[in-house]
């Protein structure tokens, strides 16, 4: 509904503005940021993933990913179970293993594969947008019927010791990748 409202606004903007395409992209980034926020809310990390009770829940994103500003905007002032949400922007393939969520959006496939492989079994909720399910990726975002959908690799989630909310699973396309 928010989306439709946004869509209505965007449509209004698009009718009277030549940069309508840019607006739709902006909307998609915000949607992705909201998805990541909801994933954070519907996922339970093991207690060892945090140094302390009030330590922030950190989401890592590639520095130049266009979703990064939307993510920062969506996370501002939010908290999940008392943990403030933080966004860390990384320059390359290094440093992902200390994050709680690794968002691998607009990244080169090689880099995505390296990072995913590096994070396999590392208690990091990985969210990627590769063309197909990845053995080491937990959640994959993909567009379908002009909607944004996601699939969950249950085996990867189990290896990462993450418990995904059953409601999340009900909405997801579950893949049983090895």
């Amino acid at each position, binding site marked *: 509904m*928010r989306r439709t409202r946004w869509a209505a606004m965007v449509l209004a903007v698009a009718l009277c503005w030549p940069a309508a395409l840019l607006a739709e992209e902006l909307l998609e980034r915000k949607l992705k940021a909201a*998805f990541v926020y*909801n994933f954070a809310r519907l996922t339970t990390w093991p207690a060892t993933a945090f140094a302390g009770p009030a330590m922030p829940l950190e989401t890592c994103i590639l520095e130049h990913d266009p979703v990064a500003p939307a993510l920062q905007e969506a996370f501002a002032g939010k908290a999940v*179970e008392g943990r403030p949400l933080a966004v860390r922007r990384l320059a390359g393939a290094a440093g992902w293993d200390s994050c709680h969520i690794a968002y691998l959006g607009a990244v080169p496939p090689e880099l995505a594969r390296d990072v995913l492989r590096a994070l396999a079994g590392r208690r990091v909720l990985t969210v990627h947008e590769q063309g197909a399910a990845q053995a080491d990726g937990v959640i994959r975002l993909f567009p379908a019927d002009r909607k944004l959908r996601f699939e969950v690799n249950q085996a990867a989630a189990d290896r990462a010791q993450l418990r995904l*909310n059953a*409601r999340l699973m*009900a*909405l997801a396309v579950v893949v049983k990748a090895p």
Partner: protein
Amino acid sequence: MNARRHSPRWRRLDDLPIRSKLLVLILLSSGVGLVVAACILIAFASSALRTSTVRDLQTLAAIMADSSVAALVFGDTQAATDTLDSLRAHPDIARACLYSPAATSGGALFAHYAREGAQCPATPDPHSLRQDSQWLTVVAPVRLGDEVAGTLQLTQDLARQRRVLWLLAQVALGIGGVSFMLSAAVAWAMQRAITGPLMRLAQAAQHVTETRDYTLRVGPAGKDEVGRLIDDFNQMLDQVKLRETALHDSAARLRAIVDTAVDGIITIDSRGHIESFNPAAEFIFGYAPDEVVGRNVSMLMPAPYRQEHDGYLTNYLSTGIKKIIGSGREVVGLRKDGTSFPMELAVSDMSIGSQRKFTGLVRDITARKRTESELRRLNLSLESQVTETRQALNQLRDAQTQLVQSEKLASLGSLVAGMAHEINTPLGIGVSAASTLQVLAEQIRERHDSGEMTRSDLKRFVQAAIDSSDLVLKNLQRAADLMQSFKQVTVDQASGERRRFALKPYLDEVITSLSPKFKGNQHRVRVNCPDDLVVDGYPGAVAQIVTNFITNSMMHAYPERKDGQMEIGASIQGDDVVLAYRDDGVGIEPANLGRVLDPFFTTRRGTGGSGLGLHVVYNLVTQRLGGTVQVKSEPGNGAEFIVRFPVRQPAQVAA
């Protein structure tokens, strides 16, 4: 109590027989109880059903909200609709509406599920709970963590609940009806247990009332109140029986008293009408009871009392001022034959219940009045007689004094006679001796003158002269002696001289002076007295006392004997002389013992007893000697007189 003020309907219930009353009461109470219980049950069930329905719906809403939260946050309308469609399995859910939060309004419809005839409103209901006759609606927030992600509104159709409640009410009413029938049956059976004994009691009471047979008893019952009532009733009958017997006895006793009373007893009521009239009253007034009962009591009074009596009565009843009541007084009564008579009337009043009654006790005092006047006359004559008697008594007393005096003189006379007799003998001997001597002297003078006197003649004469003069001298001496003693006695008796004297020789002299009395018999008197007993007093009195004792004994004590032994004993006891005289004669009859000292009492009136001898003793002892006399005797064992007088007698004593 208050039943009189109850409405007619309640009065009709009061008039019902107890068994119907009991039945009505039991059915009424059990019916009310059952209705109340059914109402409470239905209300409770309705409340519980509603509470559980609301809770169930809220729980369902919470579950549905939880199930829809992911679809809502990820904007997946299809998934949310699928979730809500699962409510199809719940036939009572009329609709389920999921709203996303909206910035401007309460919310925007995100997904919904609705049965036929139901629609979701554009915005959720502002109340979390809403119920109308048809629907129950709950509104629950859809939460994700701390954030409200949307609102779920669930509406349940209450038709099924109403059907359940209606069924429950029918069941409750059915159970109530069955219970009511059962309790009616039980009450019908039970009321016999209560009313049975009551009916028996009532029948017994009625029987007792009709027949007055207080010996009837109601059979035993249980220990409950009715049983106790029956026991009490039986005890009450016992009491009534006792009371009746006592009342009957008391009435019979009263009737007997009234009927046999010597006084007339008349009761009247407050108007003066006679209520009862006892036999004594019949006798007094001459009326039979049925002639007077019911008529005014004034018929028993002569004028003017007759006219005034009603006035008295009303006066007393209104003022309480009594004329006769409470006190007896003499009034005049009127007999049937018209004669009036004096009577004594005592009236008492009493209240029996609210009635005032008066009881009059009437006594015919005609006879008494006559007796009284008789007595008064007798009294007068008696007074004059008493005066005469007193005069006669005085004369008698004078005569007695004279007699005592003459008795004293008589005893003195007998003393003189005895004395003459005593002296006569020696004087006679002296006379004959002197005359013999004179004859002898004449003879010797003739012989001398004739010269024929011989020597032997002279010798014989001298001898005879000596003998004769000796005899003369002796007898004269004896006469002189006798004279001396008589003189002493008679002088003492006559003169009443007071002197000191030795008792024993004096008593001896007295005995000697009485020696003529002992001639021709063997009576002897013994004197037993201490020699040194000296009395200061009146020896004459003592002599006369002793003389009278001896004379008395010789006259009365020895009718057939001539050898009586008399004894005079004297002794000092303190300041008193006790002179005890006793004989061994026939004694004194006990009946006479108290009278022998009385004047003129004698058992020998015809043969010369004066009846004064011992009275003189009594007089002398009590008046002259100031002492006492005591008589002791047993028939056949002699008599004893004990005289006690002071050894020093009072200076003055009247003779």
